[in-house]
């Protein structure tokens, strides 16, 4: 019985240590930006919103940006809180991984939330010193969705009235000037 308990205990401890390594822990993009050399060459997973453009290049790769900030979950346009500037990294992947992705994030779109796994390349000599994530696996966590800001009636009405006042004032100035 004692041997069985000891064996179970060892198995639990080993699983506790090895488990996270096998499951590939998610690394915040901020860590890659602030301490980029620490994970150079390591396989990491970063979670965030694909944003900006999908650049499909002639070498069969696709470049885009992955933002890992509060706006990736809830953009300002969608009523999200202001938490500072965007935090993002460049990512490159084989074009086939990007074939069925929703459009990238922007003003009208919250782009797809993904978990991108790949090798973090810091100052890659093969790419003229660029830093980026070389993605080999992409999992869509949440689909992209449309955003709508809507009109702002008060500035709209106030602006229209002011433009009318300005036009009237300017025309009256022209009349006075022409008389002089």
């Amino acid at each position, binding site marked *: 019985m004692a041997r069985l308990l000891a064996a179970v205990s060892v198995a639990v401890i080993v699983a506790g240590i090895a488990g996270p390594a096998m499951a590939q822990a998610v690394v915040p993009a901020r860590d890659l930006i602030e301490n980029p050399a620490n994970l150079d060459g390591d396989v990491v997973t970063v979670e965030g919103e694909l944003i900006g453009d999908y*650049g499909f290049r002639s070498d069969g790769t696709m470049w885009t940006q992955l933002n890992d900030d509060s706006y990736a979950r809830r953009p300002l346009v969608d009523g999200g809180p202001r938490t*500072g500037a965007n935090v993002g990294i460049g990512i490159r992947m084989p074009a086939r991984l990007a074939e069925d992705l929703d459009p990238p994030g922007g003003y009208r779109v919250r782009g797809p939330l993904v978990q991108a796994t790949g090798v973090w390349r810091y100052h890659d*000599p093969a790419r*003229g010193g660029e830093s980026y994530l070389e993605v080999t696996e992409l999992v869509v966590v949440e689909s992209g969705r449309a955003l709508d800001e809507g009109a702002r009636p008060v500035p709209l009405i106030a602006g229209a009235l002011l433009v009318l006042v300005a036009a009237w004032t300017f025309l009256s100035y022209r009349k006075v000037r022409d008389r002089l």
Partner: protein
Amino acid sequence: MRPDADDFRAIAFYLGRIFLVVAVAGILPLGWAAIGREWGPFSSFLLMIGVYGVLGAAMVRVCPEEQRLDWGHGMVVVATTWLLVPLVGAIPFVLSGHFVSPLDAYFDAMSGITTTGLTLVQDLDHLAPSLNFWRHLLHFLGGQGIIIAALVMFAGGGAMTLYYGEARDDLVLPSVRSTARFIWSAAIVHLVLGLALLGTLAWVVLGFSWQRSLFHALMLLFAAFDTGGFSPQSTSVGYYHSAIFELGVAVFMVAGALSFGVHFALWRGPRRELLENLEMRTIIASFLGTLAVTAVGLGALGLYGSAVGLGRQAYFQVLSAHSGTGFATVPSAELARWGGLAFGGMALAMALGGMASSTAGGVKALRVGLTIRAIADEIRGVLLPHGAVIDRTYHQFQRRQLTDQLAKSVMTASLLYVALYLLGTGVALAYGVPLQAALFESVSAAANVGLSVGVTDATMPALLKVVYIAQMWMGRLEFVAVFAMVGFLWSIVRGK
């Protein structure tokens, strides 16, 4: 003498005209928002145009007769214009919700119009394209000169004063109006060329859709040719991950840092001017010098594993710093790690700046060249036998005499820039910012560069934001108009 009603009328008349010009310019982002069906930004642009329009029309209505503008009034008009235009121009930023406070929105509007490029915007990557367009159009209006735009539309009695007040030097053509037209023509030609070049690169090399290629090309062109530094994405030019695209952008950064006199020589000759011009020689030497210092510094830090990587990153960052553009291909957190010689090279490049009468900021290559020349002449005078004749001429479009008065004035202006750099550094130090970062950010603001090592942030103290705003304003106007305005305000208070 305390200013009387006629003084205020004269100032109001020209301020009003300039506001009307900016109101007309505001129709561009309004149209963009309408076409893109961005109704939130559309309403804020309409409000902005309304405020510009009412202010402008009311000011010219107060004084319907064209006034003659003396030197002092002209300078006050220029200084006030550069304070008030961004104030009203910040309205769409405030209403967008992308700024923590109206002060932050004003910071960005001032940064835009002074072609600095420091930003406090939140969630830039989800910003409406029309608002992004307005940010970059501010660069274009400020870089080419709002006053110049007004002069193109209606020259008046004070054209000369207004022209010089906006930190311009010699006229390229015989009259202010024809010079103003040339400056805007040069900008339009670069705009067309840039759209074609950068748009094609973005479409073919980067693989963007053609609509997005044109969008990126237009934004980057405004920011590069006007040495601004805003970019449509949060990671600046690093977003594009392409050496060829960076090279395309660099062409327009260089064009922006050249004086309009040099542009004129390039267009209509004589092209040998480029080889003889003191300012041209100075800027080439200072660029190569600061690039070498930065590259050696980066090599010593061991940050880059290859010479190509080191060379590419050093070249782009130093060019961006020296031309006053402020684009970056590395994050600000990484730029903050560029210590030692690399920091020295970058800070020096920013401080020296581009050419006089260009869209760049900083001390300016002409002043640097003349200062070195004056010091060299002094040393020569000591070393040569008594009575020896020293050639005190230099070539700047024509043979000119380096008089003691000129030497004194360029050295005074250079010292004022140093004082401005130290002002922002001191305030940031007082708030606990480390010396290197404080100096870097202050030089970046005062020289209208826009590179950041992370100090510029919405959470920084309000006073520091105000100081950076003042630095951007004073650095852009090169002090004279600012001093004239302070003198005018003083005369209102003291009556003399």
